[in-house]
């Protein structure tokens, strides 16, 4: 789960990580009231969206008066921000963060991650702040330090020295930040924490100018205080609905709906549709042991996407028997009055009975031999996006 910058900074404050004075506002009245509380005339107005790249997309505005701050707030609220991480339609800004300006001496990069390869925590720090760290890793890898922390011993003084000396920063100031970040990371099941940039001001203060945090979805059950930061307006409606029913769903921009059991098979099905020249509308995993209810709910979610011009059901019946799945498909299609073409591939336990149930029903489904055969069939039925629109008479 991702959260907003202003929320991350709330958490930072609680852990003693220094940030600048700032207020989240949702309209110009609030902006007027809060901006008056700043001592400095320089105010930074930042759009609060989860997607990265908002600076380049015009989501961060530097102003030099209270009036300008209100104008900038007005300009950002309700605006659709398109960055490299949003959909082409962009993400509508609903909140902005007003933050006091500061005089920057130098900028740094600092992040803390779960290192899946080494099964430890890793601090990543660089003297190249404010830039895309992946780009820095490519062009000047020598400016990045990686400090691994064994979870059984935790953050120690020597880790802090290594980072401070590498960045040429005062150890004392950095110590509070690193310790705050580390305890927050481990206490709250954070999966990624990034400060870009961390700045040294002309008054020699170290400050987190930006703050990005992601949390482990699997651990949210034990952090109700973090759960309250969830912002559903940042997520896709269909994805939220799917999550409520334990379905793993990711919306894509194609026109072929896929309903599959198992994450690996669901990804392979998307790939297969692409190979056949089509474009999947989604990733949908109904679970390794899919139930009739889940198949039915899956159909409902697929059909709620108006782009979907055809559906490919790809099931490998293991523990779950294909005859049950067959009945589930027939029920779902009949109840939901599904009018788009359907290709069904059933394999595994009782596949023949399942296919027979579908053949003998009133639903008009095309049967497929295997995943790649099914992908070819659905692509030829739906075709590319334009063809799909014609097919549906849109």
């Amino acid at each position, binding site marked *: 789960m991702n959260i907003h910058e202003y929320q991350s900074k709330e958490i930072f404050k609680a852990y003693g990580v220094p940030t600048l004075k700032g207020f989240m506002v949702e309209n110009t009245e609030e902006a007027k009231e809060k901006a008056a509380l700043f001592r400095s005339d320089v105010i930074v107005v930042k759009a609060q969206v989860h997607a990265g790249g908002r600076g380049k997309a015009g989501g961060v505005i530097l102003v030099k008066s209270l009036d300008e701050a209100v104008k900038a707030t007005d300009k950002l609220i309700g605006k659709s921000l398109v960055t490299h*991480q949003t959909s082409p339609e962009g993400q509508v800004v609903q909140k902005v963060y007003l933050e006091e300006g500061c005089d920057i001496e130098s900028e740094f990069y600092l992040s803390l991650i*779960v290192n*899946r*390869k080494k*099964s*430890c*925590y890793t601090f990543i720090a660089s003297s190249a702040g404010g830039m895309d760290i*992946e780009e820095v890793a490519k062009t000047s890898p020598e400016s990045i330090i990686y400090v691994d922390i*064994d*979870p*059984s011993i935790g953050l120690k003084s020597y880790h802090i020295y290594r980072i401070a000396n590498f960045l040429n920063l005062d150890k004392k100031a950095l110590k509070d930040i690193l310790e705050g970040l580390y305890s927050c990371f*481990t206490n709250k*099941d954070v*999966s990624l924490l990034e400060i870009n940039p961390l700045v040294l001001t002309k008054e020699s203060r170290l400050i987190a100018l930006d703050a990005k945090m992601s949390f*482990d*979805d*699997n*651990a949210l*059950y*034990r952090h109700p205080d973090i759960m309250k930061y969830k912002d559903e307006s940042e997520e896709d409606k269909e994805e939220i609905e799917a999550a409520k029913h334990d379905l*793993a769903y*990711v919306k*894509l921009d194609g026109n072929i709906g896929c309903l*599959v*059991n*198992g*994450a*690996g*098979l*669901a*990804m*392979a099905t*998307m*790939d*297969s*549709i*692409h*190979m056949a020249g089509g474009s*999947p509308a989604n*990733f949908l*995993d109904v679970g*390794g*042991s899919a139930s009739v209810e889940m198949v039915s709910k899956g159909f409902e979610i697929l059909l709620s996407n108006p782009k979907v011009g055809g559906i490919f059901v790809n099931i*490998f*019946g*293991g*523990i779950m028997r294909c005859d049950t799945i067959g009945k589930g498909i027939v029920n779902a299609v009949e109840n939901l009055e599904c009018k788009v073409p359907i290709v069904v591939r059933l*394999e*595994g*336990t009782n596949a023949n009975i399942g296919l027979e149930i579908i053949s003998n029903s009133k639903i008009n489904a095309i049967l497929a031999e*295997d*995943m*790649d*055969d099914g992908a070819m069939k659905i692509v030829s039925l739906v075709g590319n996006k334009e063809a799909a629109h014609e097919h549906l008479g849109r």
Partner: protein
Amino acid sequence: MSIWVDNNSKVVVQGITGSAARYHTEQMLNYGTNIVAGVTPGKKGQSVNSVPVFDTVLEAVDQTGANASIIYVPAPYAAEAIMEAIDAELDLVVCITEHIPVQDMLKVKTYLEGKKTRLIGPNCPGIITPGQSKIGIMPGHIHVKGSIGIVSRSGTLTYEAVSAVTKAGLGQSTAIGIGGDPVGGTSFIDVLDAFNKDAMTKAVILIGEIGGDAEEEAAKWIKENMTKPVVAFISGRTAPKGKRMGHAGAIVSGSSGTAESKIEALKSANVSVADKFSDLVPHLLRELKK
């Protein structure tokens, strides 16, 4: 021969009194797995399918001589269940449980270091040696005894591969799903190494997916050590960046974890990589003829 499980595996089911565990205990017993005990704290003295239930793994081991375990304990308690099994010095622990917090798994991995226990998973379908023992949730009937080793990060794709191999008239030496989580016990390399040494295994199918760099690491290892043919399939080539594809570990972050990088690494290690899943067995047959 086979790897890690056979007729000598004596299995304890952790969390045996839960409904999924009850169902799969019956399935495993039907397959012929030697299940000797179950564990659910506070349920000592009960039995499930005539399997005696104990409070702790150590009691189960003392009373029955169990040497392997399978875990169905719910995610909030699963890490502790794995550590209990490690503490009881079992040879093999298979953790089926999905959605274990990743930082819990970091602690488990650290605890596992230097111990004798092999952990498979979590979030995996388990391991099966056809005709001998099934410690997992895979459908037993699609497997036949044979010479192909199968290893995968995905459950259903393991079944797909098993089924395709069976249909081609070949069979499996051992099939293993290592799980879809970012931090797990057994790696591709551990499995490849074991298949390399196993006399029964003639070739290996490796099924990877986007996220992390386990496939790249495996490719390096194959290049230097593998004496048997390996054919591979990587899923998620068309997955969008930054989105988790069902499995917690299946995510392309920035430029790392892409399918292209994995396919390239495997190809450079002389692994035959199938573009389409239906090409996997034809690739395998070609490699076996070489």
